[in-house]
């Protein structure tokens, strides 16, 4: 049993086996190389038209699905790519950095050509170019590409890489992040060897068109024999890589870092699940504390913190839930579920936007929350120090000034002058002791008031006595008169 695809050639729709599709796709891509000249732009549509026609005939003859045999017969009818090149087949393809074919005057099919001057035996191999090999790699194909470039076995390179990772445990100066970061950088920087031409460059085969053409059909046969006859596993493996590359390619470099971080963690899949799960739980607990509950000893946000902190805590909680929840959800749906759904483009965009927002939100709120807490502690500590200092000052000064006030009060008559003297005394004190100053002034004033009152009553007393005396003196005078 095989998977099928629905394809559209020249406006007609066909159902085609997946291996037949791969071969057909590679063939058409190679033809693009052969006929890339602008003069030949009508040829590929003509060929596609012809292919559509051949397929239509097969369908009307009773076949419902296009198989590998059908595609192979089409290729032999229309011609293998090397047959369509009207030179002796040793012409080398000139490629620029992007892998696009540049100058090629001699390779226009159909023209009579003068063979190029013989420059000596053609090299068996040209210099290899370093690519990523995502078809044979496990995560992003970095190790696989390196192995092709260096001619080492893939497994050895992977072992060395993992060894580097583990060496960071005993060695102090080697961080455990070195390998993941290097891997991610290589993943972003190295191009993927997807087209047949790139695959040849990676292996170092001379990229003549005849070689490319042979590689298309030859390579296909090779991969056929390698793969599992039941086909299921290799499909899923391919799909994993396609998903990873699709998502990574779509998000761009930044997304690749995030995705790569996620995937590197997901080598041990359970770790990613656990982290995501714990992160969500933490976020939920935080959220519940915002509503006044008291879980796991985390103090309730609502009761114990100021309003600002409560708000920050709430936003933090939401941020954490989404930041951990989205990757968790992705991992669950893409990797673990039986149906293996693939996300639509819109979903991807929306999820990545939300993830970035939530991540920033969580980070910012956490930072603000913690700094607010620290500021608050700082503030109370500061205040406590202040108060304790002022108390000390107050006690010392009190003893000092008591005597001073008494002395100056005695030597000066008027109460006003006394007040000014007291005040003058008090202005010597440093600004810190404002409160103490006021307290002292009050105390001083109270004392002078007391004294004043005492004097006043004294004066009144004497006055009253005088008045009495006057009255008494007047009284006998009256009694004398009446006699």
């Amino acid at each position, binding site marked *: 049993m095989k998977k099928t695809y629905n394809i559209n050639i020249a406006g007609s729709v066909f159902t085609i086996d997946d291996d037949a599709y791969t071969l057909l796709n590679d063939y058409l891509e190679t033809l693009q190389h052969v006929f890339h000249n602008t003069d030949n732009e*009508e*040829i590929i549509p003509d060929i596609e038209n*012809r292919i559509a026609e051949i397929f239509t005939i097969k369908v009307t003859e009773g076949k419902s699905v296009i198989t590998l045999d059908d595609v192979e017969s089409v290729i032999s009818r229309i011609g293998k790519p090397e047959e369509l090149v009207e030179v002796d087949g040793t012409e080398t393809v000139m490629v620029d950095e992007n892998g696009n074919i540049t100058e090629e005057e001699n390779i226009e099919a159909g023209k009579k050509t003068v063979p190029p001057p013989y420059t000596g035996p053609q090299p068996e191999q040209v210099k290899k170019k370093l690519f990523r090999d995502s078809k044979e790699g496990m995560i992003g194909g970095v190790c696989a590409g390196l192995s092709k470039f260096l001619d080492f076995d893939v497994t050895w390179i992977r072992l060395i890489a993992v060894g580097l990772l583990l060496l960071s445990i005993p060695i102090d100066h080697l961080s455990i992040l070195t390998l993941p970061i290097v891997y991610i950088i290589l993943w972003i920087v190295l191009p993927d060897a997807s087209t047949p031409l790139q695959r040849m460059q990676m292996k170092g085969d001379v990229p003549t068109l005849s070689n490319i053409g042979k590689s298309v059909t030859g390579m296909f046969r090779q991969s056929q024999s390698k793969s599992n006859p039941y086909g299921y596993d290799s499909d899923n493996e391919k799909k994993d890589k396609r998903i990873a590359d699709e998502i990574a390619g779509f998000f761009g470099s930044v997304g690749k870092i995030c995705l790569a971080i996620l995937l590197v963690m997901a080598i041990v899949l359970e770790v990613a699940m656990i982290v995501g799960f714990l992160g969500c739980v933490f976020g939920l607990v935080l959220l519940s504390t915002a509503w006044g509950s008291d879980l796991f000893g985390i103090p309730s946000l609502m009761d114990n913190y100021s309003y600002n902190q409560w708000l920050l805590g709430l936003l933090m909680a939401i941020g954490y839930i989404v930041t951990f929840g989205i990757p968790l959800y992705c991992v669950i749906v893409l990797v673990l579920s039986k149906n293996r759904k693939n996300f639509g483009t819109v979903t991807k965009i929306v999820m990545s936007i939300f993830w970035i927002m939530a991540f920033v939100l969580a980070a910012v709120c956490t930072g603000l929350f913690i700094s607010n807490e620290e500021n608050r502690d700082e503030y109370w500590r500061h205040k406590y120090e202040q108060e304790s200092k002022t108390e000390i000052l107050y006690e010392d000064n009190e003893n000092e000034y008591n005597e001073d006030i008494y002395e100056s009060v005695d030597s000066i008559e008027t109460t006003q002058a006394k007040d000014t003297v007291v005040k003058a005394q008090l202005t010597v004190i440093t600004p810190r002791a404002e409160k103490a100053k006021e307290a002292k002034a009050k105390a001083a004033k109270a004392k002078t008031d007391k004294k004043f009152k005492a004097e006043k009553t004294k004066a009144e007393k004497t006055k009253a006595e005088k008045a009495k005396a006057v009255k008494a003196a007047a009284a006998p005078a009256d009694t004398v008169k009446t006699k």
Partner: protein
Amino acid sequence: MNSEINESNIKSQMRKGVLEYCILLVLKDSRCYVSDIIERLREADLIVVEGTLYTLLNRLRKEEKLTYEWEESPKGPPRKYYKITPVGEEVLGFMSEAWDEISNSISHFRNLDNSNRTTTEETTCSTEEQ
């Protein structure tokens, strides 16, 4: 392996020269679709793959020796039917002349060879009297 390539190379090199001529001949009196042309060529023992034909037809059209028109077909997508142009007919004339000339030259050499065979002697190319 090398000699194999050379043999098919020789044939294909020779065919390349005459293929254009053959196509113009086929289209001289009728309008044909690509697979018709291939069929005709096969009848004449001239086997080519369709892809070669597509490129050749494309070039001839660019050189205005041929033209095409679309026709709906019950068997699938619409088809291009090729036919010869006046320019093409003129070129065909030249080609026929050229062919006759070359063919004569070759026949001349071959006849010479044939006539010499009867003596069963190896002849030298020198014109010196023995």
